[in-house]
C-alpha cells in the first residue's frame, strides 16, 4: 500500500523522496442490499419440463408455436426487485431448457461470497413438437420434444445482487447476454432509472412530433393499409 516516489538526480530541482498512501476513490457500500428471504444465494435448477397431475385432470398437450407469447412489450417484469443488476431481453424470444441450464451454470460459477442471483422467468411450459427424422408428412402432429419459456421485450430474465459491484456483474452478464437466443443486455437500477428519465424528458420537451404514431393517426401515404396489424397496435415499436 505504501508507495515510494523517488526523485531522480537528474530530474527537476526541488523534487525529493516522498512517502505517500495510495489514494483510491470512495468504495461502493451496500447498506441498501436486501438478501432473498429464503436464504438461497445460488440459482436453483429449473425443471426442463412441467409436471402434470393426472388426478386433477392435467395431461400433456400439444399446441401451435404461439409466437404471440413472445410478441409486444413486457408489462409486469420490467423492474428490478433488488434494485441492483440483471439481464433483460431486448427482443422477444423463447428460452429453452438448455439456455436456462447454461445461465444457471455460468452465473453460479461466477457468484462469490455474499452475492446472490434469482430467476425472473418461469420454468419452461410451452410445448414444442417435432416429427421423427425421415417420417412422411401427415398422420397428425408429432410428439412433444421440448418445452420453452416465452419472453417478451423488456423482460428481466435474472437478477444478481448482494455485495457485488457493477463491473463484477457486468463481466459475466454481458458475456451471457451474447449467448442467448434473443437479443439481451445488462441492466442496472441506475440504467433503468436513467432511461425512464430520458423518456420522460423527450415526452415533455420534444418539439418535433413527427413519429410513427403521428403518421398512423393521419394515415399518411395510406400507411394503415400496408402496415401490419402489430405495427398499428404497438405504433411501430414492437413486431
Amino acid at each position, binding site marked *: 500500500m505504501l508507495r515510494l516516489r523517488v526523485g531522480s538526480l537528474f530530474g527537476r530541482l526541488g523534487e525529493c523522496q516522498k512517502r505517500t498512501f495510495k489514494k*483510491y476513490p470512495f468504495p461502493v457500500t451496500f447498506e441498501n442490499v436486501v438478501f432473498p428471504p429464503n436464504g438461497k444465494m445460488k440459482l436453483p435448477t429449473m425443471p426442463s419440463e412441467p409436471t402434470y397431475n393426472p388426478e386433477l385432470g392435467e395431461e400433456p398437450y400439444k399446441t401451435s408455436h404461439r409466437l404471440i407469447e413472445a410478441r409486444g412489450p413486457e408489462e409486469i417484469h420490467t423492474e428490478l426487485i433488488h434494485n441492483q443488476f440483471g439481464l433483460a431481453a431486448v427482443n422477444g424470444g423463447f428460452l429453452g431448457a438448455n439456455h436456462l441450464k447454461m445461465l444457471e451454470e455460468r452465473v453460479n460459477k461466477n457468484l462469490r461470497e455474499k452475492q446472490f442471483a434469482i430467476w425472473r422467468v418461469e420454468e419452461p411450459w410451452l410445448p414444442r413438437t417435432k416429427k421423427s427424422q425421415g417420417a412422411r408428412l401427415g398422420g397428425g402432429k408429432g410428439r412433444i420434444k421440448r418445452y420453452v419459456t416465452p419472453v417478451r421485450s423488456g423482460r428481466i430474465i435474472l437478477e444478481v445482487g448482494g455485495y457485488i459491484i457493477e463491473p463484477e456483474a457486468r463481466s459475466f452478464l454481458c458475456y451471457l447476454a451474447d449467448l442467448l437466443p434473443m437479443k439481451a443486455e445488462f441492466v442496472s437500477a441506475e440504467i433503468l432509472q436513467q432511461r425512464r428519465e430520458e423518456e420522460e424528458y423527450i415526452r415533455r420537451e420534444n418539439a418535433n412530433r413527427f413519429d410513427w404514431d403521428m403518421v398512423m393517426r393521419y394515415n399518411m401515404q395510406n400507411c394503415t393499409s400496408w402496415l401490419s396489424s402489430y405495427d398499428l397496435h404497438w405504433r411501430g415499436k414492437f413486431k
Partner: protein
Amino acid sequence: MINSQSIQPIFRRSCIFLRSSTNVKPCASHQDQINFVAQRGLVASSTLRGPKAPAKGSAVKVVGEKEDKAFIEMDAEKLTKYACINYLVDAETPGPEIKPDSEYPEWLFKMDLSAPRDLEDLDPEKDGWLYWQKLRRRQWEQNKRLEELKTSSIYLQDSKVLRNFKLRQLNVIKS
C-alpha cells in the same frame, strides 16, 4: 452433578474461553448451560485428529486403516472443571483446571467477543479508527478486484475488437 451455583461461573468462563458468548442468552437455565458446555465439548473432542497422512512422493508405505481415537465427551462436570485441550497426551487431567473467577483479571470478563462488524455497521464518529481501517480495506479490495476483472473480462474494456465483432454481426461493417 454439580449444583446451579457452581455452574454459573464455570459456564461464564467456558463461554469466554470458547469465544462464543454471543450465541448464548445471558439468563439460560441450568440444564441449558450444561447442555451448552457439553455441546462445546463435542466440538473440541471431534476436532482431534490422528497422525497426518504421508506427503505425496515419499517412499513411506501407506499402512492400513488406523483406529479412530476421536470420541464425544459427554461428561459435563469434567468439561466445566477443566479446559479440555490435551486428551491425547498421557496426563492425569484432560487440561489445566479452571480456577474461580477471582483468580482472573477483571478485563477478561469484559472483553468484547462479538463478531467483527462490516463497514456498513460502523459509524465514523462512534467507532473512529475501526471505521477508517475497514474503509481502507474495502477500497483496497474493490480496487484489486477491478484490476483483476479489467484484464480477464473483455466486456469491461473499451475494446475495438469486440466493437467491430458486434458491428459485423449486425452487418454494419464487412469482414
